[in-house]
């Protein structure tokens, strides 16, 4: 490679590494940001943090070795370090996605088999000295590991909805650009390309990897929380109750079956009082039985249905948010909390004066249906 190309290539290698560490750090941040919600599926951020952090460290070391290291001993050391780093990245990624909560997405037994093969290959790569065998093992690990991760990523996209799906698709596009360029541009391939072609590949490789990285970074920036798959199918109805006035001030139906019948039933005054009064009555009885006034009911099971409850906070503790569901899911509880926050954010200024808008609540809170739909689209 000409010196001018080498000089041009050299600084960009470090920029690639810096962006990779930033992506990795941001994935760690996303993991810790959503950790408190106890949605285990968000560990995927951790998997990507390891993949980008260790993976790119290995790739960059390999690239530096290929273009700039002439000493044989030093070169061997660089290759070993590079393999250790890439192996750690792949193994940690597979280890995380082989946890049981990914079973809904992929058969984790296959993931564990791939993990086992990856560990074996990594050990073999590290201990053998035969160059031909070494290259074959690397090829096998690339094909198995790479294809499996690609397959996992595609499954993840297929199962996701809304904004998450679009974001994951962009991440995949960024990843494909990166993988393609890494395979052909990280090392020199004298048997495949002439010197001139190799120079052009080298010249273009870093800007293209940076482009791929930026696509990934932009896609994961402010990435929404990962909710369990199919959570939307388990929600039936949402009610917001004003405990002081024993009144449903807002309701949203998530199912379209018998919609008219449901609306007319729910709009009736008797339904209002029975539902809101029922919840409050139950609250009082349970408080008396358990002798605890502070804590509120969080869940009521009735046959095959469940009512999840969430109490308003501070100045809005007279509001109770209820969601009728088929199955208790951490994701649905999270969505209920999100709905509570959005409702308070939008209507906080007028909620203290609900008496002034008596009988006009349905008109005033109508716009909130759109916000609920947006929450569904995002997640």
């Amino acid at each position, binding site marked *: 490679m000409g010196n001018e190309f080498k*000089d041009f290539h*050299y*600084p*960009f290698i*470090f*920029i690639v590494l*810096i*962006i990779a560490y*930033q992506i990795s750090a941001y994935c760690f941040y996303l993991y810790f940001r959503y950790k408190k919600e106890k949605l285990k599926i968000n560990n995927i951020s951790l998997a990507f943090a390891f993949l980008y952090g260790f993976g790119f460290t290995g790739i960059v070391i390999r690239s530096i070795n290929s273009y700039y290291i002439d000493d044989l001993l030093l070169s061997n050391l660089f290759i070993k370090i590079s393999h250790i780093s890439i192996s750690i990245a792949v193994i940690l990624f597979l280890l995380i996605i082989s946890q049981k909560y990914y079973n809904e997405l992929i058969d984790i037994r296959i993931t564990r088999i791939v993990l086992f093969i990856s560990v074996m290959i990594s050990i073999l790569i590290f201990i053998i000295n035969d160059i031909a065998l070494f290259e074959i093992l690397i090829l096998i690990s690339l094909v198995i590991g790479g294809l499996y991760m690609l397959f996992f990523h595609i499954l993840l996209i297929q199962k996701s909805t809304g904004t998450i799906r679009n974001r994951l698709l962009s991440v995949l596009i960024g990843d494909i650009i990166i993988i393609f360029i890494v395979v052909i541009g990280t090392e020199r391939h004298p048997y495949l390309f002439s010197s001139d072609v190799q120079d052009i590949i080298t010249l273009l490789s870093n800007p293209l990897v940076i482009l791929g990285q930026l696509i990934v970074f*932009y896609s994961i*920036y402010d990435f929404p929380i990962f909710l369990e798959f199919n959570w939307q199918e388990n929600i039936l109805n949402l009610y917001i109750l004003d405990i002081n006035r024993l009144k449903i001030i807002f309701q949203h139906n998530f199912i379209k079956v018998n919609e008219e019948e449901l609306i007319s039933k729910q709009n009736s005054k008797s339904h209002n009082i029975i539902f809101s009064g029922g919840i409050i009555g139950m609250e009082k009885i349970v408080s008396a039985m358990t002798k605890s006034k502070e804590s509120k009911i969080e869940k009521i099971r009735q046959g095959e249905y469940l009512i999840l409850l969430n109490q308003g906070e501070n100045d809005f503790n007279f509001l109770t948010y209820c969601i009728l569901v088929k199955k208790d899911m951490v994701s649905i509880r999270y969505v209920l909390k999100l709905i509570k926050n959005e409702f308070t954010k*939008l*209507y*906080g*200024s*007028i909620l*203290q*004066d609900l008496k*002034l*808008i008596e009988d*006009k609540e349905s*008109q*005033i809170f*109508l*716009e909130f249906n759109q916000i609920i739909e947006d929450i569904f689209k995002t997640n």
Partner: protein
Amino acid sequence: MIFDKIEFPLDGPIADVLLVIEWIIVFIYLEFALVFLNRTLKFKKELKSLQEKGYVFLFLGFSLMWIFFIIGDYYMISLDLRYICLNCGYVSLMLGCVIFFYTIEKNKIFLKRYLFTLIFTLDIILFILIIFIDIYSGQLITFTFWIIFLLFFIFYSIELGSIFKSNPILGNYKFQYLKLVLGIIFLIFGFGLTIDFIIDLFGLISRVIGDLLQIGAIIFLFLFFISIPSFLEYDWQKKVENIYIIHKSGLLIYEKSFIGEDDDQYDSSISGKITSLKMMLEHISKKEDISVIEKKGKIIIIQPGHYIYGVLICKVKLNSLQILLNNFIEKIEVIYSKILEKWDGDLKVLRPIDKIVKDYFI
């Protein structure tokens, strides 16, 4: 001390390290500019985005300057070409800064409107004139730039301090100041260590230290800019005198005075006057849009919504006030759209608007 003049283009092991560090500087500046650009586009309806638009140009200016420096110092064989590149770098930075000052001063007055923008524009003109006369003296006269830059941030800090003092909810301003002060000191010292005269004295190692200081400076400044509140969110309070909400039928829905004057006759007649005014304006322009009427010492902003007009009477014309009024009208219409669509004149249901006003304007 080393008194050997450094040869350009830079070469050797330290130059290789420097090249990497300086590309990293370019990248970080560019990245932070993109972060602010993204925030500006994403939150374009928020007041803070008006201020953050300025940061985009500031960071972009620095990034461009470093690209020119790298080209000049590492790839230009002729000394003249090197100086052309360096001067292009300085001009890029100055243009970035002037747009930054303009964006900030558009919404915030320091002593006099557009004072720093004007001084800096004159400085750029002076700089360009001087480098046309003597291409080599560009670097020497950049100190004027740093003086203006420093002065601007002194005023900026004073104003910021007063916002923090009057709004204790914003938290500890000393910590924010620390980030700004460290950022500016690192930036100026770092830059000083990279100029030719200092490199000739202390060798390339001073440039390495200078570059590293500048990386620290960029991070401190970025953290400062991203965490400080916007002037615009607090500064307009003293500038608003009255607010009115008028239904498009001509009826006054809400009014509030921030100056303590209470003139009932004036208030009750204003809705009719404004509705007529708005109708006339719309007749002229043939479309419904924001109207700003300027009179000496008074500005009237009329923001139409679907069902209502929002009217602000204020002392100065600030972009931030227009955005604030627009957001306020939007919020009322989101909450009351169905009521306002077929409004029967019932004011009781609209009484909670007072709380929305407090959320936005007090």
